[in-house]
């Protein structure tokens, strides 16, 4: 009886969902939506500014949101509060790893196999290039594909390379923790400044500049660099937790 009632309920609910999604005003059929009246299309066309002229790379100024990469505009400007939540999720996961594996971490895991000479010396040489690539990706998030999250992941991979290539190497994990707290605090402070001066949290209060320049797009590059630092230091902390053990 109970199963039968449940089946009936599910059937009715399913029928209602199908009917409500089928070709009415709110959900038109596939391909028939009038996207030009939707908000997202307006943002992509940037015609919500007062002067909906052409966007010319390297010349156009005073845009709705400055970056040349529309994904960055969505992630770090329109939905920046959501990104703050994502960074918090990453922070909670790194906290979980630290709670499970942490403790008085004193020294590296003792392995009975060692990296060979070429790896040990070569990783020291490649480390600079890899780290610089990560920094470049984090800084240029508003101009090129990429941004804070991939840049932070690249920074953490360079640390992982050093951990794998040297048995004695241990990063200054205290510095990483300080960097992480600094980046998170600065992110929230920028948001609060926007709230005080502009009226809502994380408002883009700086000048947007010329599209395509390095110094443009208001607070977006600053926020993205902070995200990159935070992600990089958190993932480095996770790596450190996995590769160390308690001891004297």
């Amino acid at each position, binding site marked *: 009886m109970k199963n039968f009632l449940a089946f009936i309920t599910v059937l009715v609910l399913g029928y209602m969902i199908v009917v409500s999604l089928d070709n009415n005003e709110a959900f038109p059929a596939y391909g028939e939506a009038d996207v030009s009246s939707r908000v997202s299309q307006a943002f992509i066309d940037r015609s919500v500014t007062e002067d909906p002229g052409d966007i010319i790379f390297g010349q156009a100024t005073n845009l709705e949101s400055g970056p040349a990469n529309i994904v960055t505009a969505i992630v770090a400007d329109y939905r920046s509060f959501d990104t703050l939540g994502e960074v918090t999720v990453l922070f909670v996961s790194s906290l979980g790893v630290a709670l499970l594996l942490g403790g008085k971490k004193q020294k590296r895991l003792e392995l009975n196999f060692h990296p060979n*000479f*070429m790896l040990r*010396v070569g990783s*020291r*040489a490649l480390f*600079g*290039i890899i780290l*610089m690539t990560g*920094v470049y990706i984090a800084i240029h998030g508003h101009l090129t594909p990429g941004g804070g999250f991939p840049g932070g992941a690249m920074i953490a991979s360079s640390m992982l390379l050093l951990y794998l290539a040297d048995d004695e190497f241990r990063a200054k994990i205290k510095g990483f923790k300080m960097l992480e707290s600094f980046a998170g605090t600065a992110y929230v402070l920028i948001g609060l400044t926007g709230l005080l001066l502009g009226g809502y949290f994380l408002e883009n209060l700086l000048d947007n500049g010329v599209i395509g320049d*390095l110094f443009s797009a208001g607070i977006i590059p600053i926020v993205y660099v902070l995200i990159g630092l935070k992600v990089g230091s958190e993932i480095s902390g996770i790596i450190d937790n996995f590769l160390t053990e308690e001891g004297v």
Partner: protein
Amino acid sequence: MKYVATFLVLFVSYIALAGIHVQELLLGAIVSAILTVILAKHVNYTIDYRFPVKLLVFIFAYLPLFVWQLVLSNLAVARIVLSPRIKKHLNPGFVKINTDLKGDFAKLTLANSITLTPGTLSVDIDGNDIYIHTVYIKGKTPEENRQNISAKFEKVLGVVFK
């Protein structure tokens, strides 16, 4: 000097990625300077006053030899791979050869060169011994193997990394 070398490597790689503009140069210099102070002791870039001469020797003496050996090694690989009966071209084994080069980076460059030259693959370095896997062992003694494999690189690299 270590700081200068680290700064140069970081700055050059940033500029190669970002291109040359005034803003990029400015930001690249600032970022490279900060990173140099933090990680100068974790990397092994070094430089000295004879660096330009060494760079010239590296470019005009080492690189042509390297590229030529790389092409030769690829032709050798092609001959082995494209022949119908592979087994008769193979006489594989691990040999040990000596090197006179000093310094970690010199040994690394030598090992990489050996890996990319005909029929050899360096596996590990211990002190002054390089352990190499070869497709076809020609020499009987370590000295002959050394003549066959690494002598021509050592001559050039000895000048570059003094």
